[in-house]
Each structure stands twice: as C-alpha cells, then as structure tokens.
C-alpha cells in the first residue's frame, strides 16, 4: 500500500495524522511502533524520524515526520479526496495559517502538558502533579478566552469551514475531555459548542474507534 503511518495508538501526534487520513478518506497501512520496547529509538526508526518520536509517514518514496507537516502534506497532495482541509483564496488561507500556528504555538504546549498530567500519568500508574495542573490550566484558560472571542465571530477557528486549524486540536481535546480539564471548555459556550462539533465528525469517530 502506498501510504504507511508508523505510530502508537495512544499518541496524540499519531492521532493527529490519523484524523487527517480519515478526513481525506485515504487508505493506509498502520504500522505500530512498540514504544514499550523503545522501538522508536532504534537506528531503523531513527531513519524515519531522527527525533525518535512518532508518527512517521511514508507515501511511496516520500518519508515525512512531524504530525503537522504530515497533515499539511496530505491536505495539499490529495485535494480531491474527502474533506477539503485548506482554502484556496490566499487571504482566507492566511487566516487559517494564523490559527494553525496558534494551536502549534499556544494551545498545544499547555494542552499536551495537561493531557500528560491528567490522562496519561494515571494510565502509567504515575502521580499527577497538581501544581503543574493548576499552572497549566490557568495558561490554557487564557488561550481559551481568545478562542471564545474568535469563535463568537467565526464558526470554525480558521474561518467558516472546518480546516486543519480545527483538526490539529482533536487529539488533545480527546484526552482532556476525559479529565477534569473538560470544565475549562464547558465554561465557554462557543468553545464548548465548537469542541463538541468537531469531535463528533464521522471521520474523527472512525479514526478513534478503528
């Protein structure tokens, strides 16, 4: 099969790539990387991702890593498949680009840290650091306040259609919504509605139940 995704089922970055593949309705082979056995640090895997992290993608001869580079490649390479995740008008796409950066630069660092403390640590039998949780919830709330304002003027983060700017949030949302951090989203009506809507998209449901 032309497309192969190397990753781990529980990894948010892997899920980001899976979400995109599902929205684009692309067939691919999923190759599990055995993180427990440190497979991601083997010389063979390092040729796929020199940072020794998941995911990595192969499409024919092309080898890529970084989930947000993978999603952007797929969105551009397969414009006629599945959902259109980019916008052709340059000014409108520039605005999508702004919110793609906001997720990467602002939402992710606090959201991922919270997901680690509240969702992953319990899975691994580790103790949540409540001081870290409190600090990061405050920072995430500042970001969500901006989102609340944005989403009161715009149906989706990037504009009036679902794009990569929204999609990139899905994996962290999935983990946070299973924890007490969900209340931060519930407290903001536009954010809450947006989060509920994008998480109910059939492609995401498929990507997370397959």
């Amino acid at each position, binding site marked *: 099969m032309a497309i192969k995704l190397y990753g781990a089922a529980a990894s948010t970055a892997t899920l980001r790539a899976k979400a995109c593949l599902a929205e684009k309705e692309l067939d691919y082979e999923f190759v599990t990387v055995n993180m427990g056995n440190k497979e991601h640090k083997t010389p063979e895997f390092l040729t796929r991702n020199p940072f020794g992290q998941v995911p990595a993608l192969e499409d024919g001869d092309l080898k890529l890593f970084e989930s947000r580079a993978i999603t952007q490649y797929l969105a551009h390479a397969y414009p006629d498949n599945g959902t259109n995740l980019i916008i052709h008008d340059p000014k409108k796409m520039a605005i999508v680009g702004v919110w793609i950066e906001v997720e990467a630069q602002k939402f992710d*660092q606090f959201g991922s840290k919270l997901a680690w403390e509240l969702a992953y640590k319990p899975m691994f039998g580790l103790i949540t650091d409540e001081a870290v949780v409190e600090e990061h919830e405050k920072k995430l709330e500042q970001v969500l306040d901006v989102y609340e304002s944005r989403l009161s003027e715009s149906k989706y983060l990037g504009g009036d259609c679902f794009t990569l700017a929204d999609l990139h949030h899905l994996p962290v949302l999935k983990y946070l919504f299973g924890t007490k951090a969900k209340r931060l989203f519930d407290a903001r009506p536009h954010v809450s509605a947006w989060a509920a809507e994008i998480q109910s998209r059939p492609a995401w449901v498929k990507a997370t139940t397959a």
Partner: protein
Amino acid sequence: MALKLYGTVASDATQRVQACLYEKEAHFEFITVNTAAGEHKTPRFLARNPFGELPALEDGDVTLFESRAITQYIANKYDGRGTDLIMKDPIKLAIQTVWMDTENQRFDQPFSKLIEAALEGNEGGNKDVREYERKLESVLDVYEQRLKESKYLGGDSFTLADLQHLPGMHYLRSTKAKGWFQGRPHVRAWAADILSRPAWVKVAAMSPW
C-alpha cells in the same frame, strides 16, 4: 497600499518577519509598538493580535499574527519576487514543511525559554536553563546529521525552513552557545551562511541583541 508591520526591533518574532520582508523585497511600513508603555495590551492592539504579542501584519483589509503564519503569507504573496522561500515541487515542499515544523515544535521552545531566562538575568544558573540547553543541543545534533546530507535544512536551497531559525541562530551565535557549534561543523557552516545573508544582516544591524 504598503504592508504595515507592528512590532519592535528587539522582538525575535518581529525579526523573523522583517527578514522575510527583506528577502522578498517587499515594501512595508514598520510601526514600533511601545511595549514599555504596555501598548501591546491595549484594546486597539489586541484587535490586531488577541494574544497581545508581537508582531502583527496588516495588508489592506486583512490582519495577521503569529510570525510563522505571516512569513508564509508573505512568501506566497510575493512569489516571483526576491528570494524563493517556498519549494515549488510538492514533494520538496513536503520535506521543507517537515523542517519548518521542526523549528516550530523542537527548536523554538527551548530557545524561547533560554532567551527569556537571559532577559531575567538567569543565564547561567538554574537547572531549568540547563535542561533547555540540553534540549537545544540535542536538536542541533539532529541538524548536524541533516546538514551532512542537505545544504539547507529544507532542501538544496534557502527556504522558510532556514529563515524561521534566523533570530534563534543569531542569538546562539552571539552567546556562550556558540561553543555548541564547535563539535558540529555542518551546523556552524549553515549558521554562518544564513546569518550572512544581506536581508538578515539588515535586521541584525537594528537588533539590540
């Protein structure tokens, strides 16, 4: 109508955009934001960048923020003028995007924390700083391997993947971190190359650091 760039010469994110504007030979008006007076937190500025950060760019009826979104917009808008900063071939562009994302996700965070610590007068001391230094050095190890096979990070020509690193590499080279380049000759050569580009030299001349 000319572009308007709101920022300061000291802001690394503003410098990233300035470098791009110079590479693309784009005309723009530089509007200094009085951060000492808290101008970046005023409602008027928040309407341009709701996070109250620098920079913001106005192009007629559209206002953008996030320096890496701005540089991509400029690189596309002025396609055909100045330096080509975006690979035309889709496969080459996919690879360029990997290294742009690497700057965003791996290089930038430890670099930003280091510069923040330095501004707080904390350059040498605490364990957090050493942790950021360690992270940045391990990123440079990956870059050293990459640059053995590729003249520039994104491919065989200078692109946004390299440009996004300019403020960070400028900072590292002018601090004790330049010692990190000793064991990494390809990183050192690449840094020397990109930091000597006329567009960057112009930005660096205005930078207070």
